[in-house]
């Protein structure tokens, strides 16, 4: 069982940034990738900002492998489907009785670019920033406790679910249930799995809430933190510059689209 976290400690410059600065950087990439017009804007943001940042954070390899695993299948299917079945478009490539339409391909390129920019941004954040540090930083700046709790609970669900599912599967298998084999058989094996899984998870959520409460999670008043977050005057200025950049990108996007 492990915590659901992609973070890799590379002792890089990005690792040492205040999580809020990282958040501002990612926010800028996201906004610029989505707000600027044209099919190529998200690609430009990806190539000129996100990729160099991943390289600078020394996470290029896990970054690319995760990004490709998700984006590639999406790109292929959206290109084929939109390219082949775009109604009333201009055919540019003929494949026997079928043809790829220009408008469909542009649409596919556009949506792939957006996915790339959005996914790349979040992936970069996850790979370079500790969730706990981010939560502490947000809490120090007055983010509500419920936000922390929701993030926490969400991060906990995946590993817990998986561990539980394995336990239950093992137990069912020990009682002679077939869990390997064809699709039909596997789906049938899932049914006795889900009920204990869901019921057990409700009990878990209750217990976790009690455990958090027993450690004064909802206590009001000033909190302290064992983890020391670095911050600097430069970073604070940098964050405001990035926020300014986001606003500029949005305005530029509106102006250029006219």
């Amino acid at each position, binding site marked *: *069982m*492990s*915590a659901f*976290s992609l973070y890799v400690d590379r002792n890089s410059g990005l690792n040492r940034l205040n999580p809020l600065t990282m958040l501002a950087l990612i926010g800028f990439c996201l906004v610029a990738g989505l707000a600027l017009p044209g099919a190529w804007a998200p690609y430009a943001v990806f190539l000129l900002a996100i990729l160099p940042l991943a390289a600078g954070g020394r996470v290029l390899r896990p970054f690319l492998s995760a990004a490709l695993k998700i984006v590639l299948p999406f790109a292929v299917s959206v290109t084929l489907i939109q390219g082949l079945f775009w109604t009333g478009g201009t055919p540019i490539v003929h494949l026997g009785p079928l043809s790829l339409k220009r408008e469909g391909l542009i649409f596919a390129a556009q949506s792939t670019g957006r996915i790339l920019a959005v996914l790349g941004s979040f992936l970069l954040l996850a790979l370079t920033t*500790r969730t*706990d540090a981010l*939560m502490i930083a947000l809490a120090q700046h007055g983010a509500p406790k419920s936000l*922390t709790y929701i993030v*926490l609970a969400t*991060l*906990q669900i995946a*590993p*817990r679910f998986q*561990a539980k599912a394995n336990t239950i599967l093992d137990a069912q298998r020990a009682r002679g249930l077939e869990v390997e084999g064809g699709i039909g058989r596997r789906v049938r094996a899932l049914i006795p799995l889900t009920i204990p899984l869901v019921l057990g998870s409700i009990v*878990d959520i209750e*217990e*976790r*809430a*009690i*455990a*958090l*409460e*027993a*450690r*004064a*999670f*909802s*206590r*009001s*008043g*000033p*909190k*302290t*933190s*064992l*983890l*020391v977050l670095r911050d600097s005057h430069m970073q604070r200025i940098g964050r405001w510059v990035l926020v300014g950049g986001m606003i500029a990108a949005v305005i530029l996007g509106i102006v250029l689209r006219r």
Partner: protein
Amino acid sequence: MIDIQGLTYTYPASETPALNGIDLTVPEGQLCAVIGANGAGKSTLCYAIAGFVPHFYNGTLTGRVTVAGRDVVATPLAELAGEIGLVFANPFNQITGARFTVREEVAFGLENLGVPRDDMLARVDAALALVGLAGLGDRSPYALSGGQQQRVALASVIVMRPRVLVLDEPTSQLDPVGTREVFETLAGLAQAGGTTVVLVEHKPEWIAVHADRVVVLSAGRVVLDGPPAEVLAAPELSGYGLAPTRYTQAARLAVGRGLAPGDRPLPVTLEQAAPFFTDRVSP
């Protein structure tokens, strides 16, 4: 330290009370073991001492629960946290997941209490040493065995210096090695003194050696209450769905077969069993 008077509690949407007229006083520094069959109300009693009954579960409560001088029913949970520590069976559910390392995990409660960082570091390291995890502070809590995780949970609570520690079957999901680790930690804690401990536990051999007192619950009532040697050897124990220690069982068998005289108290620990079986009373 704990003073419970006429406590009756019914869960919402439930007909019968889970606790029914409980009177229980636990003095400071006592290690009080609570045993009872499934559904007897042991967990509910733990929750009532820690305030989760009624604050978290709602339901109807009558009677009075006073812990460390505070009226539990009238005090909000956030204020009870830290004064009353609670550890339960599943180690995984007690790890917040909010922190990366064991040291930070243990510090979580102190952060919420606003303890200054320097104090925090010293207290966390002391708590880790107490539970025998001194070398593992920089590990991820998820990279530990069940027994180690449960000791992290224990350290996370101890570090807040609660006046009362409530443990609900803390070893029931651990293997024998993990169980021994947790028990040894508890024994060390009891020896260090001061903390009042309420421990729900099923292993009578362990209770017999370490508990100052044993309370038996059945259907939400206290049915037996006394020193371990008395309660654990009581003939009515099996009527409440509980097994006596191996030593008591063997002694009872020996008496039944005329191999040992029946006029002596039955042993509940190995220490008591040895003379019981070897000191033959000459006829």
